[in-house]
């Protein structure tokens, strides 16, 4: 029974045709792509704040049509390779949520916060290409968004379990469906040919030690998720305290005492973005 549910959910998840986003970032990017003098860096900076738009450009540039699936892991590179016309096409064909806006705002802030935090962690750990850790952080809860769009009833059942049984969202997902958004993330990332490090960051942030190829990405996203919950910026769907895995710190050769510096750095960056309202 559980396997049947998983198969049918997977089918529904992967058949997603129209993934909406929140209006604020979309409006801003829409204005920019009307301006022929707008430069790619500017557009990339704004798209990098929105998990849905970022997912869309990365999915497109990693599709077999372009001939290099699974190679591109930053929004900046994706935009350069797609070109202005294609990016404008993506933007004008993207719709906005007509419901759930309030619920989604919290998730958008949480994702943006996690992107910043994962980036700070990666830098502190001296890892190469820290921008890719931001992307993994930004997309770490994308499965929740896609589930909300494709299976609103299940999404509501999870939400109810969170409220009534005082569970974390992740626990509620497993109680209701038998699997969590980490699994949904893995399906999406593989189906969209996202690079392996982004995929494992998305699908192993709850248990970084199980990541096969890119444990650093999974660990950085895990710690990022923990940090953003401490600061209570946005919400991942519940208000439970998060658990920091000691293993994740070990994997990045970070000590608990390093966290002071990391938290300070994160707080500074958060201050820069937190006065942007998402909707």
């Amino acid at each position, binding site marked *: 029974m559980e396997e049947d549910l998983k198969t049918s959910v997977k089918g529904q998840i992967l058949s997603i045709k129209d993934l909406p986003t929140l209006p604020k970032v979309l409006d801003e990017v829409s204005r920019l792509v009307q301006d*022929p*003098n707008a430069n*790619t860096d500017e557009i990339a900076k704004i798209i990098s704040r929105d998990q849905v738009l970022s997912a869309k450009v990365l999915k497109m540039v990693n599709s077999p049509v*372009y*001939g*290099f699936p699974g*190679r*591109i*892991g930053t929004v900046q*590179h994706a935009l*350069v*390779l*797609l*070109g*202005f*016309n294609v990016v404008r096409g993506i933007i004008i064909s993207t719709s906005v949520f007509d419901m759930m806006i309030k619920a989604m705002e919290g998730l958008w802030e949480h994702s943006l916060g996690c992107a910043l935090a994962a980036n700070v962690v990666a830098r502190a750990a001296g890892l*190469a290409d820290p921008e890719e850790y931001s992307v993994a952080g930004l997309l770490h809860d994308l499965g929740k968004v896609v589930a909300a769009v494709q299976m609103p009833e299940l999404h509501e059942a999870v939400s109810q379990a969170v409220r009534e049984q005082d569970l974390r969202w992740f626990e509620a997902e497993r109680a209701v469906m038998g699997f969590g958004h980490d699994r949904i993330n893995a399906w999406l990332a593989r189906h969209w040919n996202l*690079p392996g490090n982004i995929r494992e960051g998305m699908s192993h942030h709850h248990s970084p030690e199980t990541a096969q190829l890119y444990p650093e990405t999974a660990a950085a996203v895990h710690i990022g998720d923990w940090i953003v919950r401490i600061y209570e910026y946005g919400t991942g769907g519940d208000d439970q305290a998060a658990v920091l895995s000691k293993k994740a710190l070990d994997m990045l050769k970070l000590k608990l005492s390093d966290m002071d510096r990391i938290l300070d750095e994160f707080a500074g960056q958060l201050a820069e973005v937190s006065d942007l309202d998402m909707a």
Partner: protein
Amino acid sequence: MAETPFSRRQNAFLLSPDPDLAKLLTGLWPDEVMRFTVFERGRRAIEHLFNDPPDLLVVDNRLPDISGAEVATLVKSENVYRQLPVILVLDGSDLDHSWDWDQVEVDDFLVRPLRGEEARARVNLTMLRAMRALDANPLSKLPGNTSIIQRIQQCIDRNEDFALAYCDLDYFKSFNDKYGFSRGDEVLMMTARVIVNTIRAFAGVRSFVGHVGGDDFVFIMPPDLVEEACRRVVQTFDSIVPHFYDAEDRTRGSIVSVDRQGETRTFPLMAVSIAVVFSTGARRLSHAGEAASIAMGLKKKAKENPKSCYVLDQRER
């Protein structure tokens, strides 16, 4: 000179026993745009066709000695003639039964009664489409050699100021040897995208990008913008290309392979070299070949640098 969509006069063969059709078709283009040779029988025309292929073949399905489909198959089954556009002329009743267009590989068909204007438009379109399809690089789909040379010649004929940049990749071969052709193709697709989008980002500028083949690309830009374009291509390529290597090689910044002599050799990551030739003011190129030979000399200079770089033609301008 009459208005023409073609770069030179086109030679066409019409295989038809129908004098009215011959009269109508030959009257649609002035002689200096398209010249028709009419054959009333099919078989006799075939040897001519193979010896001296025209630019267009129009076959009437009313031929008494051979079917139009058979003529088309003869032409299309030989790789050296495949690119010749073939148009079949049918009677309405020929369409009463269905055709297997996978077997009859014509490029288009016309149905009697023909309307002159429409027939001319359909034939022109078919020919241009065939040229584009033939010349496009099969991997990147960018215009190939014929279009590149045509475009250079066009710039020269119009007395335009232009800069012509030749790009290729250093250490592409060692990458291919280590990672295989399909990984090599990924890099070529990426390079094509980088060049195309960099050039197109200059809004409102007449420009052109072509793919000579393999890791050789060409772009044409106004002279005052070309250096900035080169800078951007180099910068973007260098930031993206490491991601096409496996993590270990990327971290090391080089690939290690064993050559045929059994010696271990180290190769840097791929880089892009660009040689730019100008045609401006007093120093104008006289033909496309001249540009290529100057560029080859510059290329050598660019190649002395293992990193990505561009070299501008410094002759008196």
